[in-house]
């Protein structure tokens, strides 16, 4: 009896080669001769690159506080370069003694951004706006100074990661109202308004950001009345806003088009005015759909802020390049770029994961 059960169990069990690690490998790595070939090729590539890279980045690398001479002719990465220059990379040419201020400002800023992204804090509702206002005032005081015994620092000395974050955030947030107006204008029944919006959107979307930034840096001064001049940073922000508004408008338009006709007609039937209809019925639904693509747009905008170096602002990328302008650290540009790329990557990767989560979260209860 016992024998029979054992034998029974034996032949009901799946063959060893289809389960466990071997089964997984057979299924996922060696399912056909072509697949096996690809797997071997991939393993070869991994073996020929990863150990060397690991050796370079960790084992042979020079860490800690060392002068550039120590790194000379060494086979590994020279992280001493980052050790030496990370404050220049992160804060640009902000006065060295005062760099705790951009650091604190950045922490406040990031707390605001992360806080607004976390679901449990959404219960704060309208208070979030007030908290942002308070936070931004604090950031402004810290960055400019001039009060509370802090030395005044002109915005031409701002730089590094705080500048990149400010450009990205203000570019996105301030372009949003303009984007909504442009999208509504493009969907309007009034031909003149529609034409103006279409021309604006298509013109901006048809040209590269650099040309807009060039325009901001060389043409804005011409446009102002004689004697009035605006700051380079402000010009760049205005350029970024004008640029991202056109892209944002197309995203909002997508949301507006996704709202069923019945909603528009129902709002009209209730006797709502145009702004009541849009503000209370259509936009709350449309903007909800557009949040995930908006976050994707924000990622693009975040990466695009690196272009301001072309008009001479010391953003994160420019500050990185400044760091290896120092002739003795010149050979370690790879370490500098890798460090800078890692910072950008962390932000963008976090945002793209957040947008995916948001998409799933907002889709809840919508899939009927």
């Amino acid at each position, binding site marked *: 009896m016992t024998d029979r059960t054992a034998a029974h169990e034996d032949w009901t069990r799946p063959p060893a080669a289809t389960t466990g690690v071997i089964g997984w490998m057979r299924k996922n790595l060696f399912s056909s001769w072509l697949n096996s070939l690809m797997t071997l090729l991939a393993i070869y590539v991994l073996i020929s690159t990863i150990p060397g890279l690991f050796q370079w980045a960790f084992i042979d690398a020079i860490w800690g506080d060392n002068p550039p001479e120590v790194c000379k002719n060494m086979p590994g990465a020279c992280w001493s370069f980052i050790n030496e220059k990370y404050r220049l990379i992160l804060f640009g040419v902000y006065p060295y003694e005062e760099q705790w201020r951009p650091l604190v400002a950045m922490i406040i800023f990031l707390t605001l951004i992360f806080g607004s992204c976390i679901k449990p804090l959404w219960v704060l509702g309208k208070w979030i706006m007030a908290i942002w206002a308070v936070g931004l005032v604090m950031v402004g005081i810290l960055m400019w100074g001039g009060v509370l015994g802090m030395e005044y620092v002109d915005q031409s000395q701002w730089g590094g990661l705080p500048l990149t974050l400010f450009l990205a955030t203000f570019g996105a947030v301030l372009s949003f109202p303009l984007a909504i107006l442009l999208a509504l204008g493009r969907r309007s029944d009034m031909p003149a308004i529609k034409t*103006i919006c279409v021309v604006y959107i298509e013109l901006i979307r048809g040209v590269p950001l650099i*040309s807009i930034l*060039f325009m901001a840096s060389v043409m804005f001064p*011409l446009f102002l009345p004689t004697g009035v001049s605006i700051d380079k940073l402000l010009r760049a922000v205005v350029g970024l806003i004008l640029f991202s508004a056109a892209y944002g408008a197309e995203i909002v338009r997508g949301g507006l088009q996704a709202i069923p006709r019945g909603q528009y007609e129902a709002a009209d039937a209730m006797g709502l005015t145009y702004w009541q209809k849009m503000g209370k019925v259509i936009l709350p639904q449309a903007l909800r759909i557009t949040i995930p693509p908006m976050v994707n747009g924000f990622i693009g905008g975040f990466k695009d802020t690196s272009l301001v*170096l072309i008009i001479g602002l010391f953003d994160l*990328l420019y500050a990185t390049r400044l760091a290896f302008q120092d002739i003795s650290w010149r050979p370690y540009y790879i370490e500098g770029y890798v460090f800078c790329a890692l910072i950008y*990557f962390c932000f963008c990767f976090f945002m793209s994961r957040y947008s995916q989560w948001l998409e799933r979260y907002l889709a809840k209860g919508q899939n009927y």
Partner: protein
Amino acid sequence: MTAHHSKSDIQGPAPARAAFYNDPTVRAIFWQVVVVGSVVALVGYLVSNALENLERQNIASGFGFLDLPAGFAIGEGMLPYSPADTYFRALLIGALNTIKVAVAGIFFATIIGVIVGVARLSPNWLIARFATVYIETLRNVPLLLQLFFWYALIVEALPVAREAFGPLLGFHLSNRGMNVPLPDDMGFLGLLVGILVFIVAAIWLYRRNKAIHDATGETPNTLVPTLVMLVAFPFLGWAAGGFPTEFDTPELKGFSFNGGGVISAEFMALWLGLTLYTASFIAEIVRSGIQAVTKGQWEAAGALGLRRTQILRFVVLPQALRVIIPPTTSQYLNLTKNSSLAVAIGYPDIVSIAGTTLNQTGQAMEGIAIIMAVYLTLSLSISAFMNWYNKKIALVDR
């Protein structure tokens, strides 16, 4: 009482016409006049300021400067150029350089993007991981940083011209770029004509056979005649040119190469950066396009007895392409616009040359107008072509 009132309201005479200022048509006209008026006023104000400022700075306006000698050198171009040539010619060379890098970038980004996108869906776990890492890394790092990286890598890590890699078939790779041999005989034109004839003939053959297949269900052999033509036409062209074998190969003279053609380090860095970056976006588009085709389509095609390659070719890809083409078009447009980052690494594209022109003449408005005109023309051409293609493959509904 109240009831009586409302009754009389309903039954009473029709209410007077709404006041004219409540008439939607009148309101629409009013608001349009207001908006157009303020836009015109704003633009007028800005332009008058600009004219005043330009006059004060003694800067001419208009496009008269295009006929003046440019006076600056350009690193590379597809037309002969010297600093004595006009601004117009300099800008033309810049525009051609933009088109050159955009076309090369679009071509290779499409190929790499499709391969990586399909690889991400591969049943092979390792290959799929590779594709994912590629996509996530390149998408999340600014293109400008990548361009700087590639350019620095080419300039700093490759050997100087004297110790260049190669020659491999006459190719040399150094930190100045790649030196390539060029055909040095007009007889090669025959070969070129032969290749062109082959392409036209192959397209004709493919269409003819497809028509036969659609009409009769028979499948005429396409592969063998195509291969025969592939060998025959170029060979005939080569023979017609008198079997030329002369190549102008680059030779090391002192510290640089003489002869042959050169693919500059700037072009290589820009092309590499644009291609790899855009490919990561195209890969995601291809992946989502293929995933948009429902599983039922695969299963139905399998039930009809089609092989996996046939399923992909006849069932899945035609449907996936409809999802893939529109977002890919905007990636092509992005690539073309992103080629303007050339200015940061010193490749003489239209933005870089218009920027130099703008600095020399001070005519900012004209310079930026030229940049915008060139990109708008390119964008509209790409859109028009892709829309035509999209219409061709679009779903034909009943």
